[in-house]
């Protein structure tokens, strides 16, 4: 009689999200993403020589030997695409959750004191004021080009979205009677947030996470196109598109290969965010 059934209810919340993966969109989105992750993990099997192995055949079209053809240095584009996907996935799947956590904490900081809340909001406004590219340039200037620069650029770019969403949730939830009741009982701020406010803002934050993953793909591509992306010869999908675009008329497979993968990645996140959103609304 005294075991708390909280665990059961937590399972129900999980079940609700599990429902998201039962809808057609959820299945296709999750399936595509899973396939892409598997392919990215299998990169050393697909290209045992690594992404920088050059051959004498430069810029050949799609063939049985090189499915997407080769690039201007004679490297297999399929292998580079798979390694590029690896870069992108490693960036997105780490930077976005980090951004989610920091942004949410910043958004909720208003619960500690009004002044702190106002201060973090102004900070987020400043970040929002910089276009993504300028933000990228500044970060590259500070820490130099590479994976970490992209990582930080993505983390910063996500903060305003997550921060504002968390703050909106905090503001609408903190004046609810049951939150006030907890306050009158003397429940600490941290507990109040964890028990009464967070569960109510998880839904919009999860959806925002999936949406921002799509945005992150394009931020990476954008920074690579202006040459601030990952340092060559390491590949990323964005950087490959950047170079491939030069040969678009003569060797279309150069852009089409990485482009298609990028599209699939974006599509999988979009479908996932849709499915999550639907599950969140249905509740």
């Amino acid at each position, binding site marked *: 009689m*005294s075991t708390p059934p*909280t665990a059961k209810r937590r399972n129900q919340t999980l079940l609700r999200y599990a429902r998201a993966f039962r809808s057609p969109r959820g299945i296709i989105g999750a399936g595509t993403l899973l396939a892409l992750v598997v392919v990215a993990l299998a990169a050393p099997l697909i290209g045992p020589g690594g992404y920088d192995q050059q051959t004498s055949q430069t810029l050949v079209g799609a063939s049985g030997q090189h499915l997407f053809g080769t690039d201007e240095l004679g490297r297999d584009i399929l292998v580079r695409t798979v390694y590029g996907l690896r870069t992108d996935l490693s960036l997105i799947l780490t930077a976005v959750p980090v951004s989610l956590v920091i942004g949410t904490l910043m958004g909720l900081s208003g619960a500690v004191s009004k002044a702190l809340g106002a201060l973090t909001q102004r900070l987020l406004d400043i970040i929002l004021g910089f276009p993504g590219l300028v933000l990228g340039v500044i970060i590259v200037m500070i820490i130099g080009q590479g994976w970490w620069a992209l990582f930080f650029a993505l983390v910063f770019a996500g903060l305003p979205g997550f921060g504002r969403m968390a703050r909106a949730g905090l503001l609408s939830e903190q004046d609810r*009677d049951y939150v006030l009741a907890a306050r009158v*009982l*003397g*429940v600490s701020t941290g507990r109040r947030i964890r028990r009464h406010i967070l*569960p109510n803002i998880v839904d919009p934050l999860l959806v925002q996470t999936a949406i921002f993953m799509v945005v992150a793909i394009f931020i990476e591509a954008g920074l690579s196109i202006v040459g601030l992306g990952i340092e060559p010869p390491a590949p990323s999908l964005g950087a490959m598109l950047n170079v491939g675009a030069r040969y678009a008329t003569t060797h279309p497979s150069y852009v089409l290969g990485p482009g298609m993968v990028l599209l699939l990645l974006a599509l999988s996140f979009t479908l996932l965010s849709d499915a999550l959103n639907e599950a969140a609304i249905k509740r």
Partner: protein
Amino acid sequence: MTAEAPLLRVAGLRTEFHTAEGVVRAVDDVSFDIAPGEILGIVGESGSGKSVTARSILGMVHEPGRVVAGQISYRGRDLRTLPPKAMRPIRGREIGLVFQDPQSALNPVMTVRDQISEALTVHGMGRAAARERALELLEQVGIPDARRRADDYPHQFSGGMRQRVVIAIALANNPSLLIADEPTTALDVTIQAQILRLLGRLRHELGVAVLMITHDMGVVAETCDRLVVMYGGRVLERGTVEDVFRAPKSPYTHDLLAAMPRLSSDSAGARRLPSIPGAPPDPAHLPPGCPFEPRCRLAVDACAEKMPSLTVFSVDHAAACHVTAGGASIPVLDSPPAPPRRRAEGDRRPILEVTDLRINVANGRRGLWGRQDPVYAVDGVSLQVHPGETLGLVGESGCGKSTLARAIVGINEPASGAITVRTGGAVQYVFQDPSASLNPRRTIRESIDEGLEAIGVPAAERYDESVRLLERVGLNARHLERLPYAFSGGQRQRVGIARALAAKPELLVLDEPVSALDVSIQAQIINLLESLRDELDLGYLFIAHDLSVVRHLSDRIAVMYLGGIVETGEVATVYGDPRHPYTAALLASSPHPDPAAKHRERIVLTGDLPSPKNPPSGCRFRTRCPIGPIVHSDRTICIEQRPALRPAPNGAHVACHFPGELRNGEA
């Protein structure tokens, strides 16, 4: 009944909602007539089907609801068989509709004149004529200075004035029938009195009939000619207001009337309120027989098996009851005696002392040119609450009573003055809306645990303590692991009280704890609060707008107006001999559930509560005061000096320059 043909005749109406869980019969076999120029009240609690009845008449039942049987005949035409297109000219032109919430019934981006003219032009009137008529209507519903205000937007009007505009729209096409769905529930008592008086006047001037949907027996007694009592989708009783109130023939009506606290009650304190056990039925799970049977103290076997048909007792009085149909009379509903209150033992010092408190509710945001002016929602309030005692705090919305209450429990910051709680004494708060005050995702046990945890009860002892608390408020261990949605409103309020008690308070701040509950539940909660106070020696600060509830539960009372206390004293003194004109007006405006009091002299205040942003100089009540400078131009002292609370000869304290000049019932 009148010899005239009825304006509207509803016969055998049945409305059902076909949901995934099954068929919900919201309205079943409902019949009534309305004669031209008559006011008919349909009274019922939540789920009684009263609002669905009104919607059925207008052909406005929402999906998946459907009128499945019966006749709705308006001037001889059956509205049920009319195609939607033919229904349109009837809705709005022949039958006007007044909504409960004037806030959402008006479009915020259209001027009131445009909204009224729209009601006219859609039925074919020219624009210019419609604008003229709009002005006339605004004057008719008593908007002062109508010509100047016609082009204002809804937000520039107060709640009462907005409701007048809504009525003006409903009246625009000279309808023969107004359907008013809880037209005064969202309004304060002094404003409610104005609107009810307006409806009565319109009936006399325009001969419009009114179908008034309400939960408030007091409103019915004050305004209606006849009433229909609904419960669980059925009509349990109908008749003239005089007949039904004098000799109700349905046990439900009888007990409901008996359970209402009265303004004039003398038994306060000596006895508990008589109460009806249980809660109104869920329309999705109605009992097979009479819907009231599970709660009825007179029920016999037949009641559980078969819904009784209406028995006619006199020309215009009928009730559906197996017991009274056989000629049995309804015995008096017992009011349990209250155990003697223990006093005078232990520490008798006040638990709470508030001294000269001011609370600034301006949001403190700096404008471009410096700090915003302060807005004192509470301005110079002092009060005390002793152990085992209830201080009733009464006032209309906007008077600052909730701001004050929230400051006492630490939610609002005082600007100046002091709130002193006796050492070791804890203060807890009970909220108005029990469904909003419980986290819908957390079980009752988790909600109560939170309070126990906060005062440091070790986890191992919390289960037993929670069960004790639940039993204390009339629930039990079986309820612990349920989520709030599984409870009725009254049960949720019991949980809210248990949670407050978990923190072992000496003082409870009760902010309108029964006003969101069904009438038949209110008495249960009031009795519970009373026995908890007496057993645990709790002090209560009881905030309410309903003067009869306050009277029953309170020892002393404080009347607030625009941030200040205008009168305070022993309950019997203040109710029996109000010295402040505002107190007198409040008492006079409260509806009495007694048709005999219908024609009493009433002080109906004009105008609305001014904004605390810009309070009147001197006495804050002077802009509405029936004995102040708006009537006696020589009383400049009211404009110049704010009256202090001074002792009156009857022992109360009154803040008025001319105390005692206006009494209850004198105008």
